[in-house]
């Protein structure tokens, strides 16, 4: 492939203009293809959108680079644009980070000065709007694709607009599957950088040497196999946001380089002594405890302070009161519509199991469970048999262990009580206070059901009622 910097446009000024320097700054993706549909050039915005560097893309069939749904049956290039000079089509593409992005592609004929058709230009506009896909209805309790109405999520949603408007670095923490990536994208889409690129890189997915070149780029000849210049993700994210996911997995040597960037906003590609100034906002995310990693010497304290300007914690699903039900119903509607099924509800047993499950994989796990259930359900209602068996078994064993725990804990309370009763005789602790606490704890464990609480305490229902009255515990 010929270097984009070497391609020139003549006739505008006294000297030819370098094509690369002009096209790379355009906010829309531009791809030039040959008459046979092979890529001959793509600008930087196209590199961001497709995930291929210009070097990798050149010579490949356009369909492999853009991965658009237009490429299959209705590709205008195959029909020579139906004889028109320009054709516009709406569709979607699959990006390298596996997102489906709605786009409008304008196909334009490229002619020689004599009027001979040499190929086509494709101008690709990203139609994504703030994380809301055009084919998905908006949800009253959502920002972007994040849904929730629990107090913890409402608090998080309230903070987002203010945070998005600043240019400060953001550190997003939270367990796996809580939606850290979605949150980062929402912040980008709500910010003034929304028209710029959102570039994501997983710091844990690549070995150290590759990661350095991927992040900061390299110049031709920097190492064996560096056959061309590579811009790196920082330069691809120029005027946009760079999302560093799994920042806790970033090797120490690269932590220093990131710190240097955060200080002066200049990056040094591998093999180059010349720095490149880039305007990039950093959002980092991790499921690890960075403070603990600092104590263990595995993460730089100064980098943590730099990234920690704004810290957002995405709560695990078990701490999002009421959101499981909301998300269950949302995913049921989504997958039912998507798979063309008429599944519209959960049976009460299935709903109870899903509400009681602890979701160690958080929202991602809940989504997968509902998708599985909708897939295999042939009727209108999801029942227990449609729920993955590991979920049902986990809830059942959880129920049993709760009972055991409860009886064990009350046994322990009795032991404590007897011990303390002896102490109370010496005036240190009052028996009445302990008994009152014991009743309250039993009632809480049993969700306020007095018969069950009485059984747990080893009393009759009347005894419990009498003691509740004695201690002023009202219903």
């Amino acid at each position, binding site marked *: 492939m010929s270097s984009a910097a070497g391609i020139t446009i003549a006739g505008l000024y006294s000297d030819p203009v370098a094509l690369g320097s002009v096209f790379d700054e355009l906010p829309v993706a531009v791809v030039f293809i040959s008459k046979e549909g092979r890529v001959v050039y793509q600008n930087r915005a196209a590199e961001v959108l497709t*995930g291929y560097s210009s070097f*990798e893309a*050149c*010579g*490949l*069939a356009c*369909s*492999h680079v853009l*991965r658009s*749904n237009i*490429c*299959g049956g209705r590709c205008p290039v195959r029909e020579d644009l139906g004889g028109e000079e320009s054709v516009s089509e709406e569709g979607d*593409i*699959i*990006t*390298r*980070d*596996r*997102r*489906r992005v709605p786009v409008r592609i304008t196909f334009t004929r490229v002619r020689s000065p004599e009027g001979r058709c040499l190929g086509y230009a494709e101008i690709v506009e990203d139609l994504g709007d703030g994380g809301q896909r055009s084919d998905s209805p908006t949800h009253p309790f959502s920002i972007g694709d994040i849904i929730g109405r629990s107090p913890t999520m409402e608090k998080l949603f309230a903070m987002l607009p203010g945070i998005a408007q600043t240019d400060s670095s953001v550190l997003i923490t939270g367990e796996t599957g809580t939606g850290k990536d979605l949150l980062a994208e929402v912040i980008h889409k709500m910010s003034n950088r929304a028209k710029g690129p959102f570039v994501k890189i997983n710091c844990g997915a690549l070995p150290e040497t*590759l990661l350095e070149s991927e992040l900061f780029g390299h110049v031709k000849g920097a190492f064996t196999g560096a056959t061309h210049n590579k811009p790196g993700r920082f330069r691809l994210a120029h005027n946009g946001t760079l999302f560093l996911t799994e920042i806790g997995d970033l090797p120490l040597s690269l932590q220093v380089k990131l710190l240097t960037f955060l200080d002066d906003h200049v990056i040094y590609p591998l093999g180059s002594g010349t720095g490149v100034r880039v305007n990039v906002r950093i959002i980092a995310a991790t499921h690890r405890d960075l403070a603990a990693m600092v104590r263990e010497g595995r993460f730089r304290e100064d980098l943590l302070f730099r990234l920690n300007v704004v810290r957002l914690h995405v709560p695990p699903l078990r701490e999002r009161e009421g959101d499981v039900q909301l998300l269950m119903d949302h995913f049921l509607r989504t997958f039912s519509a998507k*798979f063309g099924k008429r599944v519209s509800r959960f049976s009460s047993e299935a709903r109870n199991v899903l509400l009681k499950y602890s979701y160690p994989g958080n929202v*991602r796990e809940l*989504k*997968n469970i509902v*998708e599985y259930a909708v*897939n295999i359900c042939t009727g209108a209602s999801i029942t227990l048999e449609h729920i993955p068996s590991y979920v049902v078994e986990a809830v059942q064993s959880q129920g049993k262990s709760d009972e055991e725990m409860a009886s064990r804990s009350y046994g322990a309370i009795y032991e404590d009580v007897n011990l303390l009763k002896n102490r109370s005789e010496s005036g240190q602790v009052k028996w009445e206070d302990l008994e009152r606490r014991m009743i309250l704890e039993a009632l809480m464990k049993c969700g306020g059901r007095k018969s069950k609480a009485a059984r747990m305490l080893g009393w009759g229902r009347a005894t419990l009622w009498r003691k509740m009255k004695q201690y002023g515990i009202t219903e």
Partner: protein
Amino acid sequence: MKEERGRQKILVALRGEEVASRFDMAPEAWLGTYREGEGFTNEKTVVLPQASAENLCRLIVSEGVNTVVCGGIEQEYYDYLTWKKINVVDFVVGSLDEVKKAIASGVLRAGDILIKRAGESTDELSEE
């Protein structure tokens, strides 16, 4: 895929002779079993009633496939397949023959561009 070079049931999402550029736009799929030392057996090509990610996922699960080779795939299908303990080698560009060669030599990785471009030999084209 080097570490999984025992017996594998493989599905390649195809459009014609090449890996389909998108998983959800593959009108056909090649299925085969690979065992080190024995090569490929039980090869067959399945034509789908219509290109659809759901149909393909159903086929993959029902056929007990261990490894899927495909082009671009949406995250939710990727997550679903990996959740089902299926190895997904995505963003592969190349013909079925080139994919089979790469599998047999144990070098196939996600993102590999296996096709021959002007002035290059296939041996040099592995992405990493």
